């Protein structure tokens, strides 16, 4: 049964590798992260405009051809990944922290604090977040992607808050929570050390879902041309490809399809990965 005390990591590893699709997802995510964050150090950041090399097809010099300005598409692909991933992570961190703290405390404490949180979730939920985001982005033309991530995080927490609150409502009635109260462990310790780890898998999965949603949102804003067009970003590449009708020109297709594929693969990888995470984080599923 038990694999000894030293093997917690190896037991986690077993949980991660048990589900083939989950493991595939994890490899996919890892590969893209290495491509994006490792690749930065390998490509030439100086990617000059070259009027003689516009829309070049794939070749040894330009692995994915060149774009409408004659810039190397592969270099842009490598450099364009960091921003959406960071923004996605930032938005997810903000969302999950707000949701976990408010949801768990509201569910555990009930009373006036709970009422207040519920009101706040209701109000925030009625705001159409994409519309609000578009209005903000078009009003402040020079808004930074970080700001966008923060706004996404500040607008998307209510759903997770609600479901965490609901789960805490049921978990706090369990006897082991009463046992913790009998030890006078204190509200904070009971909520964050005894209750929340029981839903670690759920919170983690929602974190990943929040990352994917935020990536879609930021890419969408770039696609609509609402964010400054100076950055390196997969979303911006798609928008520029679209604006310059790259889809009409077969040899220009990589400039449109490569960032699309990266976004799609990264999202698929994240979603598949959640399956393994669940197993790795739940001690009961872990070593069966």
């Amino acid at each position, binding site marked *: *049964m*038990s694999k000894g*005390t030293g093997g917690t990591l190896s037991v986690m590893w077993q949980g991660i590798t048990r589900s083939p699709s989950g493991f595939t997802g994890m490899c996919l995510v890892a590969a893209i992260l290495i491509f994006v964050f490792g690749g930065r150090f390998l490509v030439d950041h100086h990617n000059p405009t070259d009027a003689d090399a516009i829309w070049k097809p794939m070749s040894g010099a330009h692995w994915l051809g060149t774009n409408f300005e004659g810039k190397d598409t592969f270099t842009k692909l490598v450099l364009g990944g960091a921003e959406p991933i960071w923004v996605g992570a930032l938005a997810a961190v903000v969302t999950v922290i707000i949701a976990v703290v408010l949801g768990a405390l509201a569910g555990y404490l009930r009373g006036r604090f709970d009422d207040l949180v519920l009101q706040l979730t209701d109000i925030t939920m009625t705001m159409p977040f994409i519309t609000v985001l578009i209005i903000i982005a078009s009003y402040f033309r020079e808004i930074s992607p970080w700001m966008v991530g923060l706004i996404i995080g500040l607008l998307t927490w209510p759903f997770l808050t609600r479901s965490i609150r609901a789960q805490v409502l049921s978990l706090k009635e*369990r*006897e*082991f*929570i*009463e*046992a*913790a*109260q*009998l*030890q*006078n*462990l*204190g509200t904070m*310790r009971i909520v964050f050390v*005894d209750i929340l*780890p*029981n839903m*670690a898998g759920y919170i983690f999965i929602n974190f990943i879902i929040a990352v994917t949603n935020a990536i879609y949102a930021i890419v969408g804003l770039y696609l609509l041309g609402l964010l400054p067009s100076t950055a390196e970003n997969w979303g911006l590449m798609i928008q520029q490809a679209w604006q310059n009708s790259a889809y009409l020109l077969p040899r220009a297709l990589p400039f449109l399809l490569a960032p699309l594929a990266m976004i799609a693969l990264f999202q698929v990888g994240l979603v598949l990965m959640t399956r393994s995470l669940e197993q790795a984080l*739940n*001690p*009961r599923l872990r070593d069966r």
Partner: protein
Amino acid sequence: MPEPRIPAPRRPEAGTTLLELTGVEQTFHTKRGDVPAVAGVDLTVRAGKVLCLVGESGCGKTTTARAAAGLTRPTAGTVRFRGSDVSTLDAKGRQEFREAVQYIHQDPYASLNPVRTVYSTVTAGLRRHGHVRDRAEARRKAAELLERVDLTPAESYLDKYPHQLSGGQRQRVAIARALAMDSEVLIADESTSMLDVSIRVSLLNTLGRLRDQLNVGFLFITHDLAVAKYFAWDGDIAVMYLGRIVEQGPTPQIINDPQHPYTKALISAVCEPDPRLARAKKAVRLRGSEIPSLTELPNGCTFHPRCPLFEADTCDSAAPPLSLLDGGTRLLACHVVARDHEQAGVG
């Protein structure tokens, strides 16, 4: 262990009154009316002694136990710990009460946090309240506690999760947790009913050692008279019916010579494994088997619709007081038996 053992904390002397319930009432307000789950209960838990609370399901045993443990606030009456009212304690007094009075749940599958290891569960209180200096000391203390409840070798249990343990082992972990802060009173709510018989006896023996060696006072809730007899032979039994105590006294008296018709019925319902004895035993026949609803309690003595000794006008007019029988050690709440004894004493 080479290191000298930390001197044991002061333990209360056997017989000291630790927990005192006076006139405890607990009424639940529901849509179908008020439910008086507990209607005026007086109990005293003493160090090194066992007080066993027996009765059918739904008679208010658990509600009483939860009020005694401070898990719920009774609607009337007081729970006193070492003389001070538990509901008016300040933070420091509350902490002392919480360390001294612990409650063991019925279901060891629900009372342990599935994501915490045994070590973490057992030492949570110690670490939170600064009773241990570092992790090494906490582990040593945890191992000591596990040995005290016969989980040996303790080291091999420290890093296990609840799902890796059997029911009996889990219940021992729950008891070790309850003992961690040198508790003086253990309130055990059907704590052995989920375990099979051989494990039950060994667990009762473990609890018995705690009682005798550490002077732990027990409020032991059970519906199983055999368990009550085994564990509380030197203590008292209180028999509860519909939120009231109907008979209370030293265990040998209650088991061997029950006086209240309800106690008699309970004892006659215990299965006798020896067929000859079983045939010789005459079952007490009740007039009805249905337990009245708590929302529509019968007038007078609440047991009268089922009672074989029922006498019209006596039993259904006034509730019998719980008073000493024959000036002895036994408390009884029955008009008929009390009157008969009085007459026998006079005549």
